[in-house]
């Protein structure tokens, strides 16, 4: 039998070429630049070029006091800014061995979950846009707006809230907070099935997602993936379960884990996480304990000599704050282990062998926020 495929291919001379994806590209969601090596439309090499919005936050932290670090972390992963704030606040509290009141813990947890839903909503909208369904974006933003208003009412800002301070939160909850949250939960429970009908069930969407961008379990461990990306590969990496912080030890929720490892699994993990977050909110909204919203703390915080590490689960994965203190008012070294940076690492391998359109979808399910990568 004639080997048709090879006989044809040997006659055609093909050449690999490079394509600059970004920094100005709609699918890179900011200023991520990937230099793609393409064979036709198939990606055979990915080389990242970062630093377009690198602000040197880690260096800036070395010149700031511990209170002043927090507002910088807002600007890392701006979609989970509250969780980033909390990571630093928790690290400082742990170092000083301050136990915060239950009220603070519950407030932080609720804000975390609202932030997580907001982030996942934005991701859902943009994910739809990345694969061509433009309407999802507006629907997601309609619902995200409700969270933004809850945030604005209590913290005074919609995105970069700087709500946490070491030893508590900046302001007390607004009296209208529980009511708005209840309204939001009710609304979300109505629209989430609608999202499924609009996008998840769609045959084109299923075809685009299923079996695309497979990240195997052991690879996810080795390549440094965390968060929904790792959970989509069947790993139980949720920091909220593994090392509970704030009020996560007193709420019941299920860790969303899918075994598929493909785009659809990562998508399902995030969709399920939204339901779980709603559950957590529902458990907490009715019993916010009374208590102080700020613990007494010295104005100028000095950490004892040593190394401190705090892990939290942001909407994109594990955020680690590593503080080395030499006993002065400024940290000696701060390292942020940002989820996006490690997930990008995994993308470099996952993206190989798929078409450009698939790479866009894979990047979408990895959910990058570029300031988080660049820091």
């Amino acid at each position, binding site marked *: 039998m004639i080997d048709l495929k090879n006989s044809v291919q040997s006659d055609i001379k093909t050449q690999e070429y490079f394509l600059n994806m970004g920094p100005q590209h*709609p699918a890179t969601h900011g200023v991520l630049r990937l230099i793609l090596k393409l064979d036709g439309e198939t990606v055979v090499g990915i080389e990242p070029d970062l630093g377009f919005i690198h602000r040197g936050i880690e260096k800036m932290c070395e010149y700031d006091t511990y209170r002043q670090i927090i507002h910088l972390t807002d600007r890392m992963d701006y979609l989970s800014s509250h969780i980033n704030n909390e990571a630093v606040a928790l690290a400082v509290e742990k170092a000083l061995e301050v136990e915060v009141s239950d009220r603070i813990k519950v407030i932080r947890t609720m804000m975390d979950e609202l932030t997580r839903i907001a982030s996942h909503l934005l991701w859902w909208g943009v994910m739809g*846009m990345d*694969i*061509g*369904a433009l309407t999802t974006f507006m629907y997601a933003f309609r619902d995200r707006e409700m969270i933004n208003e809850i945030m604005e009412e209590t913290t005074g800002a919609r995105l970069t809230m700087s709500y946490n301070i070491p030893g508590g939160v900046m302001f007390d909850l607004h009296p209208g907070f529980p009511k708005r949250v209840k309204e939001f939960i009710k609304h979300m429970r109505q629209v989430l099935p609608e999202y499924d009908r609009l996008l998840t069930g769609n045959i*084109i969407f299923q075809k685009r997602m299923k079996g695309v961008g497979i990240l195997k379990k052991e690879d996810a461990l080795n390549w440094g993936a965390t968060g929904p990306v790792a959970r989509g590969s069947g790993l139980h990496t949720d920091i909220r379960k593994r090392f509970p912080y704030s009020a996560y030890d007193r709420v019941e929720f299920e860790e969303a884990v899918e075994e598929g490892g493909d785009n659809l699994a990562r998508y399902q993990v995030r969709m399920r996480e939204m339901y779980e977050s709603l559950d957590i909110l529902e458990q907490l909204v009715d019993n916010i304990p009374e208590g102080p919203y700020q613990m007494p703390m010295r104005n100028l915080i000095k950490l004892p000599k040593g190394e401190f590490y705090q892990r939290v689960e942001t909407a994109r994965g594990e955020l680690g704050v590593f503080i080395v203190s030499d006993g002065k008012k400024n940290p000696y070294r701060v390292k942020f282990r940002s989820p996006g940076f490690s997930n990008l690492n995994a993308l470099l391998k996952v993206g190989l062998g798929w*078409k*450009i359109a*698939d790479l*866009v979808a894979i990047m979408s399910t990895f959910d990058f926020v570029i300031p988080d990568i660049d820091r």
Partner: protein
Amino acid sequence: MILSNANIFSQWLESTSGLGYVLVLILIAALYLGFFAVAGLMLVLMERRVAGFFQLRLGPNRVGPWGLFQTIADALKLVSKEIFIPKQADKFLYKAGYYIVIIAALIGIGVIPFSRQIQGFDINVGIFFITAVSSVGVLGILFGAWGSRNKYSLIGAMRSGLQMVSYELSAGFAVVTVVLMAGSLKMTEIVEAQQSTWFLFKGHLPAIIAFMIFIIAGTAESNRVPFDLVEGESELGAGFHTEYSGMGFAYFFLAEFINMFIIAALTSTLFLGGWLAPFGITDGLPAQWFWGMFWFFLKTGVIIFLLMWFRWTFPRLRIDQLLTLEWKYLLPVGLVNTVVMALFVWKDWLIDLGKIFGS
């Protein structure tokens, strides 16, 4: 036949001779050009408003009443913009690109009968002519993309080529299904054959399948979501027209919308009875040319709205899925469907309301 004499353009032409004949030709051409611009702009506006309502927005509503002049303002802005050509571009191909696209779209409009009296030219291979001309447009896309020396453009154009070659087939088979019923390729005769029953209902099952295939293939041919891989803004930036600015871009944009109009107009002509009123409800009224156009544009508008509905709901296919859909689903179904239709026509299993109600 009497029908050809009904065309007011040909009546006008016959009444003149010599230089006047040429002048009238130019006038008719100018009329079509004007229609082209207005229809294009209004379609863009419609798209934006419809998209707005789908997306819980209002769409443009500030310029003029209900935002009617928004796209005109946009067009004025685009005219006043600088046209810059990339340094490395092949200037001839770069410019030829949009002319070819727009001319192909314009010629296509020429044979579409807006009403019994209004049609640019009624040739006896009308439907065949449109199918032929509309595939010339892809040449413009290829020229423009190759000429602008951009890898994104080139990828887009190559996808466009693939898409066009594949979906022409399905569209062709859907057209053949209708032609079997009509027994003619002439546009006016196709419409007149639907006098008693529209082909969508006359051919019942095979006609409905043909209708669906034609809509899908038509969406693909006009490069709209879910088949907008040519532009694929989240993948390729703007695809084949990445490097175009000002009016160059506007031509591509307008041509895209005119192509959509042509697809919708063809659908309404082939399946929904073109200018014919449903059950002849406006047949006795004066100004038949107006009522013809009214019904025609109403039907076309509904189809256009359907296409917009697709666009604002569905995600985009991938290139290999696009080809799978065509070669594994649409084409076999279309082929079988044509044979079935031939059988139906031969055995006369069609539904003819005229015969049933015995008029």
